[in-house]
């Protein structure tokens, strides 16, 4: 006897994604098309073969046609559920962007530390290597050798004065 499998949830998920993605793309394209109608138009004397909105609209049209095709002919399987770690990693990325506004290297150090811990690393030397040693080394490598000026922030101000 076959084990009982609740396929209803899977099927409904599949149906949702089957239509959600092409419709989402079409909605994006409609918005992009609307934005393209707001571009300035140039007089015929300055026109170089096309108006500025012509080419984007051509591409948007192509994407819409292909997305409509996708509604009827998408045979791809629904991907399996994302793990909690993926969600949390994405959350860390967003957190990094927020902290990077205060200081880029503070954001990098914290992100690297949290990520290595989230992914299961518990050894102190590894956490210090990833969260402290590498960001510091990368900062001095780029600042001194590649002469990259990093944005001023909480920590970089200490170096830049």
């Amino acid at each position, binding site marked *: 006897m076959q084990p009982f499998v609740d396929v209803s949830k899977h099927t409904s998920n599949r149906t949702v994604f089957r239509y959600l993605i092409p419709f989402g793309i079409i909605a994006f394209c409609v918005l992009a098309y609307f934005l393209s109608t707001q571009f300035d138009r140039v007089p015929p004397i300055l026109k170089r073969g096309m108006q500025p909105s012509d080419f984007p609209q051509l591409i948007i049209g192509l994407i819409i046609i292909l997305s409509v095709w996708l509604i009827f002919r998408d045979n791809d399987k629904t991907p399996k559920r994302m793990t909690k770690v993926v969600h949390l990693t994405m959350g860390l990325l967003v957190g990094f962007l927020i902290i990077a506004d205060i200081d880029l290297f503070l954001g990098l150090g914290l992100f690297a530390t949290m990520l290595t811990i989230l992914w299961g690393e518990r050894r102190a030397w590894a956490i210090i290597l990833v969260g402290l040693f590498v960001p510091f080394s990368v900062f001095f490598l780029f600042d001194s050798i590649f002469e*990259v000026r990093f944005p001023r922030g909480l920590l970089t101000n200490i170096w830049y004065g």
Partner: protein
Amino acid sequence: MINMDALLNGLFALADPYLLMLLFAATLGGVLVGALPGLNATTGVALLLPFTITMEPIPAIAILTAIYCAATFAGAITAILINTPGTSASATTCLDGYPLAQRGEAGRALGMAAVSSTIGGIISVVCLMAAAPLLARAAYNFAPPEYFALTVFGLSMLATIGDGSPVKNIISGAFGILVATVGIDLLTSVERFTFGLNELSEGIPFVPVMIGVFGISELLVQADNLHVERKQVVMKSIRLPNMNDYRKVWKTILRSSGIGTFIGILPAEGATVASMIGYNEAKRWSKTPEEFGHGSLEGIAGSEAANNSATGGAMVPTLALGIPGSPTAAVILAGLMVHGLRPGPTMFTDQADFAYAIFWSMLLVNILFFFIGLWGAKIFARVTFVPIQILWPIVFIFSIVGAYALEQSMMDVWIAVGSGILGFYMRRYGFSVVPMAIGLILGGMLETRLGQSMVMLDEKWWLMLNRPLSLFFFVLTILALFGPPVWDRIIKYRLKRKVAGK
């Protein structure tokens, strides 16, 4: 015809000890990149690109191509020793490499992979030296309509990239082209999709997007693979293949080198497709096809010679026409543009010394990775065991600093992270990120050439079809897009009729 002066000048450029040292380091780095979990040639080149910005064009592009060649080869090391292809181009090497390694013949398998890769690589670079100037010469008289049609053909080949849906690949490519329209229109100087942000007026920069879609999206993919365990086989000693082995496989190596070079030259088709076809052809022509999948040296030779020869092949359209021959070549093309170089026919007249210096450096790298890869295989095999929870946070730090360093703008950091998250979701739902990256690179060129064609043809686009070469490229485009599904249907119909007849 080959420009002998440029050929020699290119060779003399390699006499610079600084360049030689860089090439050695890049080859070593490339082999490491190919062996590290989750990293491949495309990601490696995208991550390294910002580091090359302060360099002169020859060393900068030479080390990018060195990473490309070496990482493509290094995929075989992990394929043979731990049954995990370091790059997708080595997937077929696993089929015979790992069974050989399990029998205690890892050295023989690695030796065969190194020899086949080196020969394949050298043959393809020689073809590159001969074919690229010829192709450039043929393209020298192309007018904008021909260029437009050629670029459309190049983009149509994106449909067949990877194993995903062709429609999704084209949507992804078209999205890349749409992203390329952000910024000030080059033809009319009108701002488009900038939302009043000054940072966007010059358009979405290639490098942060490449770093995002190839590097940061892979970090999220790796977050899903934390449970994967890697087991290494014991490699007692490196026993190289003997003369009998070589005698058995030399035809396979030559055949696969030819296949790989040809596949590489086709726009967008890279080492992965080449290795699959090379492997299948090796099996088809073999006297012992039953050994394939159980540890056949011919299988390794067929796959490795093909994937490495595709690297040289892929550089032919990249340098001669400005159309990338593979995903990694697309990133190298972005690198050429960032360095202010103009890939295309003029490269072999205006920058011929540069082009030949790159060819020679690729030739040298193909010889270098033979020694580095073969004698360092044991060490590189250990590299594969670097825990990903240490590796990927470090990769992220380099990705972000690399994205920032180019324009020294925080906007680029946002673009890199945004592209990474977008790339992850695209991959999750079957949209390859490679067409998007190539679309972004070629988008500007495509629009400019369409605009120039419209001016030239008095805004009558249909006149493009009156030009034989443009028509030829459009016919090729239609064949590339509709040929495979029509062919599939014909085969299925014939099979049905055959079954019904029985």
